[in-house]
């Protein structure tokens, strides 16, 4: 049921974004059509869509997470730019295994995408509780340490968002 409702509201929000000007001009008919479509979709994807929880603490950490992610991206951008422009190219590329403690599928997805978004690291695959990450500058071969370096900066927030 929660899944169904989440899918419904997500699609309605999308619809309103798409038809905002129309709704302003013509009143309820475009909105009604959208709600109908959203109902159908919600029923169709009742077992598929993630169940969104609106617990205030989770929402808060999620909102905070976004600027934190942006800050990490900027930092690692600068780092990669430095390595590329340096005449000696101080890189040490390779693939490391990174154990992850997150249980939720969506948490793993978010984390993997965050790792990929930050330059210098790229998630290649997820197998069980392990990520395989291509790292531009390997600092350690120890999985636990690598996990601390790569995912630690995100996990602070994600642990709260996906308890």
């Amino acid at each position, binding site marked *: 049921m929660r899944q169904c409702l989440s899918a419904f509201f*997500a*699609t309605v929000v999308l619809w309103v974004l798409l038809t905002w000007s129309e709704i302003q001009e013509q009143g309820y008919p475009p909105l009604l059509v*959208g709600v109908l479509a959203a109902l159908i979709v919600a029923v169709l994807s009742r077992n598929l869509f993630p169940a969104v929880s609106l617990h205030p603490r989770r929402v808060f950490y999620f909102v905070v997470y976004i600027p934190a992610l942006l800050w990490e991206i900027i930092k690692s951008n600068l780092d990669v730019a430095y390595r590329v422009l340096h005449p000696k190219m101080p890189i040490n590329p390779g693939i490391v295994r990174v154990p992850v403690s997150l249980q939720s599928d969506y948490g793993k997805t978010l984390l993997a995408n965050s790792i990929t978004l930050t330059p210098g690291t790229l998630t290649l695959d997820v197998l069980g509780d392990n990520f395989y990450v291509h790292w531009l500058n390997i600092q350690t071969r120890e999985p636990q340490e690598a996990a601390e370096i790569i995912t630690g900066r995100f996990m602070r927030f994600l642990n709260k968002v996906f308890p």
Partner: protein
Amino acid sequence: MEKNDDPREPSVIVKSIARMVFPLAFVYGVYIFVHGHLTPGGGFQGGTIIASSIILLYLGVGTLKIPESLMTALESVAALCFIGLGCIGIVKGGNFLWNAVSLGTPGTLLSAGILGPIYVAIGIKVGTELTAIFNNMRRSPP
């Protein structure tokens, strides 16, 4: 490195993203064909987007059972709706496909007579049709 046993089983990232995007893509398809008479686009384009959202789900989730009889029924009913809408013109004393229903104000959603419903019918038809084609192709031989 541990082996991924089933090569058809997609990774968790693909899976969860597909499940998340599916309803949104679906509704976007609906948006395209509902506005077929107002903006560029229409039944075919909307139907294609819907079908691709379902194909995305196939690829993302790995296994998905869609009852074939339901698809057949939807497809046929949509096509018959198109013919029926065309016949409204005949019933009202004109020729086939005569746009005899009140036209409304141009530019609003509920305008253009039978065009809007026709686009909806075509959208459903194309969506189910392409899904069925994909379903047929990926099925193993009898």
